[in-house]
């Protein structure tokens, strides 16, 4: 009945659209999951941040009141933001450097190197409250291993977790212990640096430092960049450390020096049921992290080197 040419064209079109349809069908579980479990709750929380939502009894529109309270009337908001920023700004570069240094040390051929790599990676597999309790013992002022070691060197160690001047530094120090996962990525990228580049540099008379500075470092900048971006994002989410390692069961103690942004948010949400306020805090944090990531991306143009030229 139909014209053979038309039929062929229709078959062609329908093959393409069938393929497209099948594609959508295959990704649909993910899209559905995203819409239901991520996008839906996100939109809801954005709406709730403009209400006095307390989970079980009320949800009335109160405009920007939560945001106003947050920025102008809650001293603990700024305190927690400052604590978190302090942690991120010091911890992220330190961890990046430590991970890289560790990778450099472990990137060599020698007997038993696999064992060392495993041992250094191990701490990043462990996580949670057990590790924090362990560190609370290690950081104990008189009987802890950290101060004991310091005392052998003639140093009178601080009261790590009781002196508010030291608490955040103690957490930063502890976090260095978990640089193993970063180390792993650096190790992989170090081994991906083509050996011909080193050979060429050697021919040009470059020493170890020059080789590192002019070959290794530029070649692994994409990984460094990745670590910094994810480090920032992860750093802003610090929570458990302040909750578990605070002194005497007061979350964030002493003197709120460990009251991190997410901890403050958690306490507002689940201790006093001020969920609307907590959601406003969450969205504010989202904006901060988004902004910082954009800045990071912009700056990356000046120092991140991608093999194979501009993409």
């Amino acid at each position: 009945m139909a014209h053979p040419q038309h039929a062929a064209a229709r078959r062609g079109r329908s093959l393409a659209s069938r393929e497209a349809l099948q594609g959508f069908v295959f990704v649909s579980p993910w899209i559905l999951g995203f819409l239901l479990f991520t996008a839906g709750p996100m939109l809801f929380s954005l709406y709730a941040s403009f209400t006095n939502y307390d989970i079980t009894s009320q949800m009335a529109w109160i405009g920007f009141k939560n945001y106003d309270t947050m920025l102008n009337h809650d001293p603990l908001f700024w305190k927690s933001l400052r604590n978190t920023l302090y942690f991120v700004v010091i911890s992220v570069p330190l961890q990046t450097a430590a991970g890289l240094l560790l990778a450099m040390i472990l990137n060599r051929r020698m007997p038993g190197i696999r064992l060392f790599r495993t041992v250094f990676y191990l701490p990043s597999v462990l996580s949670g409250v057990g590790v924090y309790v362990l560190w609370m013992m290690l950081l104990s002022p008189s009987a802890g291993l950290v101060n004991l070691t310091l005392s052998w060197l003639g140093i009178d160690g601080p009261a790590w977790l009781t002196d508010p001047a030291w608490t955040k530094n103690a957490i930063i120090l502890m976090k260095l212990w978990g640089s193993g996962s970063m180390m792993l990525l650096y190790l992989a990228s170090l081994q991906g640096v083509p050996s011909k580049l080193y050979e060429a540099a050697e021919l040009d008379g470059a020493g170890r430092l020059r080789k590192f500075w002019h070959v290794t470092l530029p070649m692994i900048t994409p990984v460094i960049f990745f670590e910094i971006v994810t480090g920032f994002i992860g750093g802003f989410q610090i929570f458990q450390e302040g909750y578990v390692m605070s002194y005497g069961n007061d979350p964030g103690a002493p003197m709120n020096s460990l009251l991190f942004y997410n901890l403050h948010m958690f306490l507002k949400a689940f201790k006093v049921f001020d969920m609307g306020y907590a959601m406003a805090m969450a969205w504010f944090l989202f904006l901060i992290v988004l902004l910082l990531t954009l800045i990071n991306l912009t700056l990356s143009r000046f120092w991140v080197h991608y093999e194979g030229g501009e993409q």
Partner: protein
Amino acid sequence: MPFKHLKKAFQLTAVASLVSLLAACSGGTSGGPAAAQADAAANSGSGSSVSPEGRVVLDYWTWWGSETRRPIIEKLVDDFNKSQDKIFVKHSYYPYSDIFTKELAAVSAGNPPDIMMNDINTVQQRASKNQAMNLSKYVERDKVQDRFFPELWNTVLYNGEPYALPFNTDTRMMFYNKDDFKEAGLDPDKFPDTWDELEQAAQKLDKKHGNTYTRIGYSPQFNSDWNLLQLNFDGGRNFFDESGKPVVNAPAKAEALQYILDNAKRLGQKNIDAFKADFGSQQANPFLSGRVSIWTDVTNFYTQIRDYGDGINFGVAPLPETKEGAGHWSVGGGFVIEIPYGAKHPDEAWEFLKYMTDVEAQTYWAEKNFDNVANKEASNSSELMSNPVYKASVENLAHTKLTPNPLNAPDYMNLINPQRDAIMLGQTSIQDGLNKAQADVEKLVSGK
């Protein structure tokens, strides 16, 4: 045709993802009555011969999963299940750290447990936010109010109506090592009556080896702190007065801080901190291991002395008072049993609440856990009272205050504690710190 296979594959994928979605949805709650019964049947393996068939199954959440407490709670549940044929209570254990957020989520999803143990100091908060059920019609009908100590009953009232039943409570007392007292030349049968006397006695109990303390007699910072002492110094008044006005910088509260600072000055804060930090890293409690002679704790600390104290010769006494007649005020906490808002079988759940707060169950609970219970009659049972420590704890309840969180400032301690820390660290004077805390709490209360 390959397309047919694809179609089949798609159908399978769709079904699989749907099933996993459904499974995820029902993960938190038990999937319908059938699953609940299956669960209950599985749970009743803990010694019960009662079957839930044909009964209303109630879900009862607690965090009592330890080897000591779980058998006690399950025995009580089992006895209840055996006692009648209409209701079957199923005990579910969740860790303490998760259970309250889990309950909150379940309540807001409209599918809460039927019975829940909860914190005594936050009943009003939950009542005001529709998280707990109003029990006044049951209480009026069954007249259970007189079972309880009035101080405890007050904590469950919101706008004059009950939203829970008090279950247990505790009170802080002084445990002291009588042998240490003898060794230091103190009368082992007489605990210091005032705080000044305590400080003098503590000096005699201290032991030093060179520059380090091997034993510290007493520090108010050991398992206690200003939050306890301020109430004792202030005639049993917490941080708010009768009319709800904050009194954080009242003179008596400053005196309590001064007392703690004087003690710290004498012992050296560094020594105290070292002791405190080491507590956590040692298996034995510092009182049990002989490193501290006077220890503040809730009265069921007695069970630890009994089980791990290695025959330690101890005494128990109320907290001292500021001066003769000022009162040996102490602080208590505890738990309530309540019906979450939206529970499906409140009538049946109420039967269980009544049973759990009645004399028999409460006496059993008190005997096994050495807890102070909310039921007056059970608390005064002659068998329990024959234990001198239990007797002392019941007597101590007469001057024990509970400190429920005020509705308009539930997180006020977050503003007070940092100032307390700053004062303790010498970063601000007592008066400045307390004035700052007072101003912060006032601001919080006024909601500006």
